[in-house]
């Protein structure tokens, strides 16, 4: 009777010790894992911060302007190139008589007014010797280049502030 009780007690003791040890070690393991993961998260955060800082340096307006001036033959967007939809001429209705329609539309816009021609004239008189590139095409010889834009209409996009790159390149 006493022996049986002893055996049970000893067995219980050993079992309890084993369980406690197991719990303790698994807890330690988990704690280490948590700490390691936290550490990794911190390291990743630091890396992200370093990359962000690098990106900020690379995309700083000063640097972009320097590079744009050096490699892109662009010029600032003139304010006259910014327009709105209301200033667009009325769209020509296509019917059987295209020439008649054009004449009609010109009449509707005030007879002698020729909005497209007026814009072309303006461009010719204002920027005869400057390159007209406001895109990413670099004219091969800016001084001698054919004014590309003379035949292109400035696109009234109805938006403003979109010409950041052009703003940055100073010619």
């Amino acid at each position: 009777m006493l022996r049986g009780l002893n055996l049970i007690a000893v067995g219980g003791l050993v079992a309890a010790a084993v369980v406690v040890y197991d719990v303790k070690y698994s807890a330690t393991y988990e704690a280490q894992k948590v700490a390691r993961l936290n550490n990794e998260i911190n390291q990743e955060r630091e890396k992200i911060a370093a990359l962000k800082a690098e990106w900020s340096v690379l995309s700083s307006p000063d640097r972009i302007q320097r590079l744009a001036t050096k490699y892109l033959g662009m010029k600032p967007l003139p304010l006259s190139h910014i327009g709105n939809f209301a200033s667009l001429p009325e769209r020509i209705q296509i019917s059987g008589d295209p020439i008649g329609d054009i004449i009609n539309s010109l009449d509707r816009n005030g007879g002698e007014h020729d909005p497209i021609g007026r814009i072309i004239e303006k461009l010719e008189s204002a920027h005869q010797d400057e390159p007209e590139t406001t895109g990413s095409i670099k004219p091969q010889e800016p001084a001698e280049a054919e004014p590309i834009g003379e035949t292109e209409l400035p696109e009234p996009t109805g938006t403003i502030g979109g010409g950041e790159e052009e703003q940055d390149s100073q010619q």
Partner: protein
Amino acid sequence: MKRLLASLRSFRFTEGGVSRQRIALLVLAFAAVHLVIAGRLVLIGMKSDPQVARRVTNPDMLTSTRPDILDREGKQLATDIQSAMLYAEPKKGVGYVDDAVDQLRTVFPDLDERELREKLSSKKGFVRLRREITAEQQHEVRKLGIPHVGFLQESKRVYPAANEASHVLGGVNVDSAGIAGIEKWIDSGGLADLHLAGFATGRSLSPVQLALDLDVQHAMRDELLKAQGEYQAKSMSGMVLDVRTGEILSMVSLPDYDPNKPGNPADLSRLNRLTTGVYEMGSTFKALTVAMALDSGKATLASRFDATAPLHYGRFTITDFHAQRRVLTVPEVFTYSSNIGAAKIALAVGVDGHKAFLKKMGQLDRLRTELPESAMPLVPKSWGEINTATISFGHGLAVAPLQAVMATAALVNGGLLIPPTFLKRSQAEAEKIAKRVIKPETSDKMRYLLRLNVEKGTAKRAEVEGYYVGGKTGTSEKVVHGRYSHEKLLTVFTGVFPCDAPQYLVLVMIDEPKNRGHSTAGLNAAPTTGQIIARIGPLLGVEPRHDLPPADQLLTVSQRVAN
């Protein structure tokens, strides 16, 4: 030994209650001891061990981080990055000091030999040897195997835009404490205490968002640098203010500095002329004078003031630069920038009224913003008629340019004085703290006068087609050795656009332009402002309009009739 054996023998052969009781007692004693041990084990197992966690997290983290600073679009203006630092513990011994010095100098030839030896032979517990160690250098040092020399990770403040916003951001010292500008302001908000308590580690701090726009700031600085070269000026400064909210979108003061590099705080380039300098703002003050007279009802736009002859006050004579020698109406006084006319307008209001108005407009007190640097205006001690006469055209009262800008913004935004801020602010918040200083009708008239000045007056060169710019020029003579110098000038231009519903105010200040023939504000500060407006307008989303009415249309019919 014999006794023990004897007792064992007696135990084995003795029968009866006594030995049974003894055995039970022993069992109980053992059981109690084991219970105590088991209980203790459970207790230890349940308690988390802080030592374990510390061993795994990087023990070399020495972070006292600062919040990121962002511009209004979220672009980074300042951030922290981690870098390694080399340290030694001479108290614990680093082996032979001479050997250690030689070995370290193979990796870092730039380390000063004597200083290094001193540091290593001292008995200090911790000495810092070098900052910003690269990964390769760390590897090299580890290979040397010098005892008690190690690395710590520490955070370093980085300003990606370098010089771009130096005066607004300020800077930090080697211990990451703010020493100037917004950085110092961040510390004053309790961050320094957090650092001391060890809470401000990691990246837990939410970023600080400024009102500044990095693109506008860059455009402003670029144009000012160009103009500085053109006019060979000693210094240039400029700022952009949103007149509806009081937000400062850009603030540039040239020369400036790179906050990434430690420098001498007393260096002249560290001076933010717009907040810490006080200047006599010259004729730009006439806008305040005229607004005061119109608002008080002492004058209307049709009132006439005699500017035929110079005004004499003892030895002092007030003359006109663009002298007309006739009777001028108020708009003429403004557009010809007549000193005599402005003085007479101010005298019509009276000394006390003038003083009270300037006080109301915040021109006589120190203006405090987030930047810790501020300057007290220089106000005359005894304020008589002559002071009112000269202050009416911006001489005899020196204020911080930011202060003058705040007042000018109130003249055009409908009459609300809004304290300027470097932090992002909504219009609703601005309206809450705004103070009405002049009537909305007076503000309408001021907009008309400012626009008229660009159309017909001294500010013609500030015109930007499509942006309806209005503005006032100011040229003041600097005080050199106690008297006004005719060579050393300060030219100022305050431009507002678009004048029918003002959104932004641009201030350009040129200190000592040397280029001959370009000495007055209308010839240098005004065209520079025009170029800046043409460049920042599209960035700020202001739509250029090409069908704008002449200035007269700014006044309502009733106002025109009344005048």
